[in-house]
């Protein structure tokens, strides 16, 4: 019953249930800003480990090695629920004691990561690497039912945390090795049955088809939906980022903008119908999934209050939109973006064909893998700054499949160098308000997410295995703990029994922190 209550208050903005953390991003806005203040800038020197939970008995996972927690744990009714590929756990949020473990037998798909669970009443929702949509009982981890969402033999794989919105569970897919089409589905929370499906690429004769050369290209055009989106209950719109088109680096067989890949889309929550779109990477040829969290907040822009959506994307572009209409307000590189040569009338970047991957290589001033990736950013309404761990550098794109009908990746990026930075971006302009250069190390494609709190704190990790608290106003370091290896998920926070906890994962271990000497 309490969980149902928690659900009711799981709404946007001010009404957020600050006590719990009931979705991947903590609420529907994707801001990862907590109004909790018990841990704050004045007592942070007393922040210390409360407990840790280390995964035991799983061992190396196929193709990826030791277990890595990339999920953000849900916290509901004093229990934390988190995942790695093929496994889910419930642990006591106060003590770290394991309550149950659920395991799925590896039968294919990619074990690259799992973002976590969705919760609706007493039921949990979990995606397996081979794209089964599984419902578990939150009480004991027993499986209620399983439904197949996509075919791993076609190289689909599933990593996202299902997002519960109203009376539906939204599930997306990954997979760009074999040129399959992307989609987002709404599933019934009681039965797992399909309610609606939105295809990320059009079918023959549908709107958007004019941005593809032929039906074959768009029906194999990619556009995966592997990260949870956000939701505005007032507008009844869900916001989703879509992945890169396929073939990934080889665009010669898919001339055109390739809608609705590498886009931010607004869909009607009841029907899945497209309401508006904005495409930060038209005709992407750099593997720049545009799935990074579309962060929602209400703030002033040009002198009037607006309902806004901000995103820092893998292509190095910071985007600010009016989320009611999709109107573009800011398009600006937060790292080098010479893959583009300007901005079109809709505020969308125009890719520079001269810097597309070529047989003999094209040098761009965006690092391999992009300027950021899936690790969650944060928006702090008190500073008006958008925080993201990013990468500055250079890379060379190669076309390795010069066939007129290329397939698969068809090329490669990388080389060059990549230097990790923490950026604070002014949402009004896209300008960098402050930047923290990490002294060494690299971020790869998996690195720490960001959390901000009303305690005037910003939490994230560095490449050297430190969990760090910064002053979100100016980037001063206030506290740190050497957590052993790079923070591997987005930090989160909750209140339990009158005490605020901070949670962060590093590799196979989940750490909880609280203020010492309080209780």
């Amino acid at each position: 019953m309490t969980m149902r209550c928690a659900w009711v208050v799981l709404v946007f903005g001010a009404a957020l249930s600050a006590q719990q953390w009931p979705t991947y991003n903590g609420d529907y806005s994707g801001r990862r800003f907590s109004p909790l203040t018990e841990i704050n800038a004045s007592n942070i020197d007393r922040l210390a480990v409360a407990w840790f939970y280390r995964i035991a008995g799983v061992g190396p996972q196929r193709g990826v090695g030791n277990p890595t927690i990339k999920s953000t744990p849900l916290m509901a009714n004093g229990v934390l629920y988190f995942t790695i590929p093929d496994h889910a756990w419930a642990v006591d949020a106060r003590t770290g004691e394991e309550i149950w473990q659920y395991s799925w037998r590896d039968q294919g798909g990619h074990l690259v990561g799992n973002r976590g669970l969705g919760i609706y009443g007493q039921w949990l929702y979990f995606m397996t690497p081979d794209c089964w949509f599984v419902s578990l009982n939150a009480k004991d981890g027993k499986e209620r039912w399983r439904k197949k969402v996509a075919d791993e033999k076609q190289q689909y794989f599933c990593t996202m945390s299902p997002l519960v919105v109203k009376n539906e569970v939204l599930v997306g897919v990954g997979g760009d090795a074999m040129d399959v089409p992307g989609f987002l589905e709404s599933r019934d929370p009681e039965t797992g049955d399909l309610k609606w499906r939105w295809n990320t690429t059009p079918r023959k004769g549908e709107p958007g088809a004019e941005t593809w050369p032929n039906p074959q290209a768009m029906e194999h055009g990619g556009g995966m939906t592997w990260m949870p989106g956000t939701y505005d209950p007032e507008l009844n719109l869900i916001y989703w980022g879509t992945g890169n088109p396929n073939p990934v680096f080889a665009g010669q067989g898919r001339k055109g903008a390739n809608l609705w890949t590498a886009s931010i889309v607004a869909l009607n929550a009841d029907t899945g119908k497209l309401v508006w779109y904005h495409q930060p990477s038209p005709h992407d040829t750099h593997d720049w999934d545009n799935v990074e969290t579309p962060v929602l907040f209400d703030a002033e822009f040009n002198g009037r209050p607006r309902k806004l959506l901000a995103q820092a994307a893998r292509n190095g572009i910071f985007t600010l939109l009016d989320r009611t209409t999709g109107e573009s307000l800011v398009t600006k590189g937060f790292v080098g973006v010479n893959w583009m040569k300007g901005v079109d009338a809709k505020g969308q970047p125009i890719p520079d064909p001269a810097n597309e991957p070529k047989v003999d290589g094209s040098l761009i001033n965006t690092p391999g893998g992009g300027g950021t990736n899936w690790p969650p950013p944060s928006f702090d309404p008190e500073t008006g700054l958008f925080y993201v761990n990013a990468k500055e550098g250079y890379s060379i794109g190669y076309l390795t499949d010069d066939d007129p009908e290329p397939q698969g990746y068809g090329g490669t990026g990388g080389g060059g160098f990549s230097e990790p930075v923490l950026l604070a971006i002014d949402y009004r302009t896209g300008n960098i308000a402050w930047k923290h250069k990490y002294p060494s190390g690299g971020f790869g494609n998996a690195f720490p997410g960001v959390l901000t709190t009303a305690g005037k704190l910003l939490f994230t990790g560095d490449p050297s295995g430190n969990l760090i608290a910064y002053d979100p106003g100016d980037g001063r370091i206030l506290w740190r703990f050497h957590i052993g290896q790079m923070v591997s998920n987005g930090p989160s926070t909750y209140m339990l029994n009158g005490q605020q906890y901070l949670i962060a994962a590093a590799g196979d271990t989940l750490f909880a922190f609280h203020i010492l000497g309080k209780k």
Partner: protein
Amino acid sequence: MGVLSQASAQEDSPPATGRGGRGGNLREFLGLGAPPDAAAAARGEKLYTANCAFCHGEKGRGAEGPNLVRSTVVLHDEKGERIGPVISKGVLEKGMPAFSSFAEGQIYDLAQYLHLQVELVANRGLYKRLNVVTGDPKAGEAYFGANCAGCHSATGDLSHIGARYPADQLQNRFVWPGGGGRARKVTVTLPSGQAVSGTLKQIDDFNVSLYDASGEYRSWSRDAVKVEIEDRLEGHRQLLEKYTNQDMHNVTAYLVSLK
């Protein structure tokens, strides 16, 4: 670097080295099933070219007939058990005739050929860069003379460089010679004014550690010392901001010529 730097994946790359790195481990990561039987695929290629390529394209990517590399029948097949019936019975309503004369072994060979085509598309660890030597070596020599010769020499450190690396690796290496294992020299100045130099082990915002000249490990808190790290790649870093693609290709053509 290996054949290719690891292409970044749809989300996270598997680790660039070790498990899931490239080639064989990458196919394990991708869950591609049993590797294609190369000898059977070579036999199958001849059968394919003679019997199938006319409709399904030279490499199975489709022509008048459908693409077989993306075919769900092919992707679910292991040893010809799903492909076989389609070949021997045909798909008459779609215009594919029955090929009923193939022996079981030939079906297996054809299936392995198709699985190899899938492998070459899906397993990006096997991708090979094509010809990167498209520039003008003369222009590259001039660029080298103006921008690189302060530190490097075609007859000194780079003599025969074109014979030491494949051209594509050479291009990536001169653009950015960095790499995980690169030793960096560091000097730490203590509050007493004493300076300790050595090979940097680790630095973050809080601590610095090094191995000194005698091989001893030493570490300090950053707030008590001054740290200076030698950046031997500063010249390369500055050139990254200047190169056009043409410059890069010209220098590659020049370095490749230094056999």
